[in-house]
């Protein structure tokens, strides 16, 4: 049984790992292959700061809230494992700031210690009159993706550096299931007008005295269009750009100035921070994540495709829940192909 995974960002690699973990024991002939034009450190996931935090509102999409929770709990469970450092996983606390009161988010009981900010805390952030404090997790792509790659390599998963132009390309060759984790480029494989870029730009600085994430919100402009500061292990990320429909991956001087000025206003000490890099990337935005099966007729062959893309700016936040869901879809495919007597339950 050959499975081709298209895409080697956080979604592709984690889906591959999840499927291999669950099924390699049950399906001895299982062979996984990852195809991608970009590998770490050149994927979208590598550019993200890595903060676990969903958007402010789930728009009633309870399924996504559940996947977010699964991801958080899964990561929290790994926090004390010896792998945590290599995964780029650690606890981080911080602030979400608003200029007016807002309802509590869907994730308030998922994170740790969620509470409103006190008046004294708000003094740190002039211009903001309301906010939250909570403890969440960081999962740095630049560490997590290599960690996933190592786990997959150990398991005998093969990697191919190739831009896949169509599902036929991989499925025609005797591949039984295709996992479409192509993120922003999913539209190249199958048109999807709902998938649009949410362009972001970030500045990387040396500011090791910053120990908290600080995310401001402008309810009129929308998510990520207001300054944010996220401290990593090697540098701190300054951001605040979200441009829907902009496909450019070139750094813009105008966006640089906007990020720099607004972040320095938020944290005056940043004026002395040294800039060590800049990056632009395209969040694969979609009204909801596309996570579903599709049978594709390719000539006289039928291929099963599992789509898992469109995670916008919350890919890291939701990745494991989606990987588990993709694995369940894979299980049902196996059942249908009579490869499995019944779906795998929890190991006793």
């Amino acid at each position, binding site marked *: 049984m050959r499975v081709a995974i298209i895409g080697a960002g956080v979604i592709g690699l984690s889906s591959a790992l999840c499927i291999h973990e669950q099924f390699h024991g049950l399906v001895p002939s299982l062979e996984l292959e990852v195809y991608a034009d970009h590998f770490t450190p050149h994927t979208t996931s590598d550019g993200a700061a890595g903060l676990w935090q969903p958007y402010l509102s789930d728009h009633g999409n309870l399924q996504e809230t559940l996947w977010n929770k699964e991801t958080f709990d899964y990561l929290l469970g790994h926090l*004390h494992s010896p792998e945590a450092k290599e995964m780029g996983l650690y606890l981080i*606390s911080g602030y979400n700031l608003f200029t007016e009161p807002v309802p509590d988010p869907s994730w308030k009981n998922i994170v*740790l*210690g969620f509470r409103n900010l006190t008046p004294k805390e708000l003094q*740190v952030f002039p211009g903001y009159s309301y906010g939250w404090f909570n403890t969440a997790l960081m999962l740095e792509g630049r560490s997590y993706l290599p960690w996933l790659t190592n786990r997959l390599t150990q398991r005998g998963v093969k990697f191919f550096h190739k831009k896949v132009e169509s599902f036929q390309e991989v499925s025609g060759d005797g591949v039984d299931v295709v996992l479409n984790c192509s993120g922003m480029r999913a539209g190249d494989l199958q048109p999807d007008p709902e998938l649009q870029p949410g362009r972001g730009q970030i500045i990387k600085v040396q500011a090791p*005295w910053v120990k908290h994430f600080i995310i401001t919100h402008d309810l009129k402009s929308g998510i990520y269009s207001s300054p944010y500061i996220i401290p990593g292990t090697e540098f701190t990320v300054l951001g605040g750009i979200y441009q829907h429909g902009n496909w450019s991956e070139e750094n813009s001087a105008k966006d640089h100035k906007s990020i720099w000025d607004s972040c320095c206003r938020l944290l005056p*000490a940043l004026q002395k921070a040294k800039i060590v890099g800049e990056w632009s990337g395209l969040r694969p935005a979609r009204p909801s994540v596309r996570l579903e099966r599709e049978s594709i007729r390719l000539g006289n062959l039928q291929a099963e495709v599992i789509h898992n893309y469109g995670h916008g700016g919350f890919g890291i936040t939701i990745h494991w829940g989606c990987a588990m869901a993709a694995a369940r879809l894979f299980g049902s495919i196996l059942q249908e192909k009579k490869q499995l007597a019944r779906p795998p339950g929890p190991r006793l």
Partner: protein
Amino acid sequence: MASPKVAVVGAGLIGLSTALCITEAYPSCSVTVLSDQFSPSTTSDVAAGILIPHTDLDTPIHRQRQWFKETFAYLFAISNSAEASEAGIHLVSGWQVFKSTPKEELPFWSDIVLGFRAMSEAELQKFPQHQFGQAFTTLKCDCPPYLLWLEKRLKATGAQMYTRKVADLWELHGEYDIVVNCTGLGAHQLVGDKQLFPVRGQVLKVHAPWVKHFIRDGDGLTYIYPGIHTVTLGGTREKGNWSRSPDPGTARDIFDRCCSLEPSLQGAQDMEVKVGLRPCRQCVRVQREVLSKGGVKLPVVHNYGHGAGGFSVHWGTANEAAHLVGECISALQGSSSRAKL
């Protein structure tokens, strides 16, 4: 007395902050800092500099509270300014955890730090050996940066600093009008204060940039304080131990205790071991004294004996000591005008 000459003996946290308070309150003074050690070789340089007060046994709580409140407010303002990184001042959040619920669940400083509250059950899961905990956000003064920044501010006021070992306060008579004694543990020798005793503290400074929170065991012995470039792991409280040499067995023990609080520290790199002798006393001595010898007088202001809690109260005691210096100046001006009559 046109321009009183003030000598501040000691260039640790207390000496430098006191000197700065004096220059700010009494700009007509000329202030000189004299010390055998300057940063990075002072006791203060070893400390993590976290603002979590220790309860002084003899000082009234309201006075300790006032000192802490003043210190917190002063550092809070710096942390919000463009100077924060140079001054080494930053906010840090974290947890104080207890193996059994403490008698006093609300310490006297709980409303001065930010966001103080009891930890939730979910948060306590991270600490399986601990039953109870407090979460809050406080400030940290990284040394040497903070001390170097104080030195820079002092120099800007025109204050002088000299490396000099003062063996006897009377040495300074004639050269200086008022002496401020900020010699920490040195006061044991310098002014013969036998109430002063060292409480030896050994710490490790490691590179572990993924540690963004402080974790402190309520027993005060085990703690993890993330600074700008390194994380301070501690510690020990060895009463009466004068040894400044790092002990390898102790280092291993500290590391093990910290790893049990924060397992990811197993991956920490570049360990440096340091020792500091906390200048402990039943209570901090912030007091005015007029030394007298053969009809000659020497006004002295003492500001020492801060034990484990120096950083938490330093600005408050510096202000109080500066105020006492003001009293000395008035007394001198009073007596000099009487002398003119």
